[in-house]
């Protein structure tokens, strides 16, 4: 109903959600609007504004904003918040109400910012959030006294358990038709407001509580000089092993399902174009990618859990030294770790990096972190060429090679960062200042929503971009048909065959045959499309028996080991993802940097593949 009103052009009162980083703004936004904005337990999870309609009887538009410690913006995301609440944003109009979110376990600190926003002269409601955690820490706050002292309504909430929402909605609706709070002098400088905030907190807090005792105890282990780094690298290693071993069974099930569907189609359809379209085109192409859903979900499960527990900020703390050695700071580790899932959110997360040159460097190296779209490529080739055996202590050789590929990406990212910081992004290293949030057990609902969203995006891509490019490729691979008296498979004479042969000239020095060369073209749209394309191309040029055996065994007989290794090296670097290029253009405000990024990554890819292919040929020859 709310959407209808908005659609008819009635302008609803706008409520801006503002507060310190990591106080639960996005969780509260989701609870009030029913939307699924990303929620995570580290400062800087939200980097852009997002709006939605409040559900229920009140008619309000809510804007979720990046967290900030003050209205002095120090990074791109904080600047968005400053612009929106001061009414200087290019698109959003000035909010009618400010919903100031405060972490009840850290009232004295968060109040200072409340007093600063109060000066804007906009009607305001304070949500005293995380009151459940405060109760657990035996913190007790006199809400009435607090409300009287700061002169605005204060509502107790627990966003993740949807407590206090009705009261909050009513208070917001009331504030929308109320005058701004009367001016009270709390001071003009940070120092004065800090003093005032501490004074108010002291009168409103009945019991100080016991502090984040559990968090301290966990940190004593996870930030221990020896256990800390071992845990971090152990976690990353476990993640890559899990991606390989846990996904095995569900992947075999999907594969078997696709294989038997193909066999079924062969049995009911006459041999011809229609059968080829479904079997070689859609099933071999799209199917080759859908198989990887379990792996991608396991990878995202790890990252979502890491993000929601509060461990991400600790990882940044441990990595700061290493990052400093290449001219970045630990803060950049969070976007880079997110890039293991997908470079697009990773590049956007770089907004929380205050220093512009550091931000640019992080954006430019983000595509080197092995994203989930490379999983299909790596898995197929590893399964085809690396023997499935253990190398002691339950560590699989295949998982180890996968870990090596991830490591290759990470190390080249660090080297590139060092190079970029000494050349194009030259400048002094930024400092490192990061709040380490209290640990929380992962919110199962948020993790489940995150996984569901990822599965939806993945399957939608399979059904749209991968399906369409597969169909086009299939069409180009079937027409024109083979001439009379042809000796080679028909595909050799098709458009795909001709394009492939032409491209092979460029890629032959790095060991790529014409099938690989042609698969790289649709693979420009997204990396996993290359696997779909290989599925279709080999399906059309092989025998029935080969097709049913699956892409893995086809590749095993069609490629030499040096070609396979060269192909892996190519995908460590090649910028084969239109979304990454597009988001880089948006985040850097022009074509200069995406063009630079694509160029340097292609040069690295070709060089790495060339060396890999020549070395492997020489060693094995």
């Amino acid at each position, binding site marked *: 109903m709310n959407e209808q009103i908005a659609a008819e052009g009635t302008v609803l009162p706008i409520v801006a959600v503002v507060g310190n980083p990591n106080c639960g703004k996005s969780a509260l936004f989701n609870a009030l609007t029913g939307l699924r904005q990303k929620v995570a337990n580290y400062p800087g999870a939200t980097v852009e504004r997002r709006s939605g309609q409040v559900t229920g009887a009140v008619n309000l538009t809510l804007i979720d904003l990046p967290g900030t410690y003050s209205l002095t913006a120090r990074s791109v995301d904080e600047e968005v918040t400053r612009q929106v609440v001061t009414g200087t944003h290019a698109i959003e109009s000035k909010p009618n109400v400010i919903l100031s979110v405060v972490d009840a376990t850290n009232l004295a600190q968060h109040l200072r910012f409340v007093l600063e926003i109060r000066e804007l002269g906009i009607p305001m409601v304070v949500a005293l959030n995380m009151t459940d955690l405060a109760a657990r820490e035996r913190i007790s706050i006199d809400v009435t006294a607090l409300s009287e002292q700061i002169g605005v309504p204060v509502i107790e909430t627990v966003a993740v358990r949807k407590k206090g929402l009705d009261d909050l909605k009513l208070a917001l609706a009331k504030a929308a038709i109320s005058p701004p709070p009367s001016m009270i002098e709390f001071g003009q400088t940070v120092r004065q407001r800090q003093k005032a905030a501490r004074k108010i907190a002291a009168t409103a807090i009945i019991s100080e509580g016991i502090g984040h005792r559990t968090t301290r105890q966990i940190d004593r282990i996870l930030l221990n000089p020896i256990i800390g780094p071992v845990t971090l690298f152990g976690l990353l290693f476990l993640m890559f092993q899990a991606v390989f071993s846990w996904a095995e069974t569900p992947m075999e099930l999907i594969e078997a399902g696709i294989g038997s569907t193909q066999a079924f189609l062969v049995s009911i359809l006459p041999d011809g174009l229609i059968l080829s379209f479904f079997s070689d085109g859609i099933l071999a192409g799209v199917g080759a990618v859908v198989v990887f859903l379990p792996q991608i979900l396991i990878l995202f499960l790890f990252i979502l859990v890491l993000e929601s527990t509060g461990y991400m900020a600790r990882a940044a703390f441990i990595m700061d030294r290493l990052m400093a050695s290449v001219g970045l700071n630990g803060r950049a580790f969070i976007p880079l770790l997110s890039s293991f899932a997908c470079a697009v959110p990773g590049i956007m997360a770089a907004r929380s990096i205050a220093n512009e040159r550091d931000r640019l460097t992080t954006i430019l190296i983000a595509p080197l972190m092995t994203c989930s779209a490379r999983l299909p490529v790596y898995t197929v080739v590893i399964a085809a060429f690396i023997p499935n055996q253990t190398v002691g202590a339950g560590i699989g050789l295949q998982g180890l090679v996968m870990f090596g590929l991830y490591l290759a990406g990470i190390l080249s990212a660090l080297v590139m960062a060092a190079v970029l910081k000494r050349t194009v992004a030259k400048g002094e290293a930024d*400092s490192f200042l990061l709040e380490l949030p209290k640990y929380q057990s992962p919110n199962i609902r948020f993790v489940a929503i995150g996984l569901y969203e990822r599965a939806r995006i993945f399957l939608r891509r399979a059904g749209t971009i991968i399906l369409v490019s597969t169909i086009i490729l299939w069409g180009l691979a079937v027409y024109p048909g083979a001439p009379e008296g042809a000796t080679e498979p028909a595909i050799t004479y098709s458009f795909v065959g001709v394009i492939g042969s032409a491209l092979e000239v460029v890629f032959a020095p790095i060991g790529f045959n014409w099938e690989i060369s042609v698969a790289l073209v649709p693979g420009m749209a997204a990396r996993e499309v290359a696997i779909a394309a290989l599925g279709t191309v080999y399906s059309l040029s092989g025998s029935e028996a080969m097709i049913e055996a699956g892409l893995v065994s086809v590749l095993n007989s069609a490629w030499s080991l040096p070609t396979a290794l060269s192909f892996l090296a190519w995908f460590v670097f090649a910028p084969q993802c239109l979304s990454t290029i597009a988001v880089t253009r948006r985040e850097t405000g022009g074509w200069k940097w995406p063009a630079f990024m694509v160029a340097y990554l292609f040069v690295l890819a070709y060089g790495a593949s060339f060396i890999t292919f020549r070395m492997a040929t020489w060693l094995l020859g």
Partner: protein
Amino acid sequence: MTSIPLSEPLGTCMPGFSGTITGFTSDNKDIESASVEQLREMGFTEGLDIAVLHQNPFGRDPIAVRVGAMTIALRRQQANLVQVTAS
């Protein structure tokens, strides 16, 4: 005069240190630098209890400190702007 505790920069303190914030190092007495202002915004303020909890395992820098109810990670160079006395 020896009974007055001497203040020292936070950046020189090791894990296990606990004390109180006495002030900030500023070139100019009247106007605080942007770095000091940022530290204040994060939660550093005079009179608060402070403790150094951890340091980076690879090079002892950055450090993680407890300020009031928060834990904040920062590099030693920046921590030197904060003056503390041991308790």
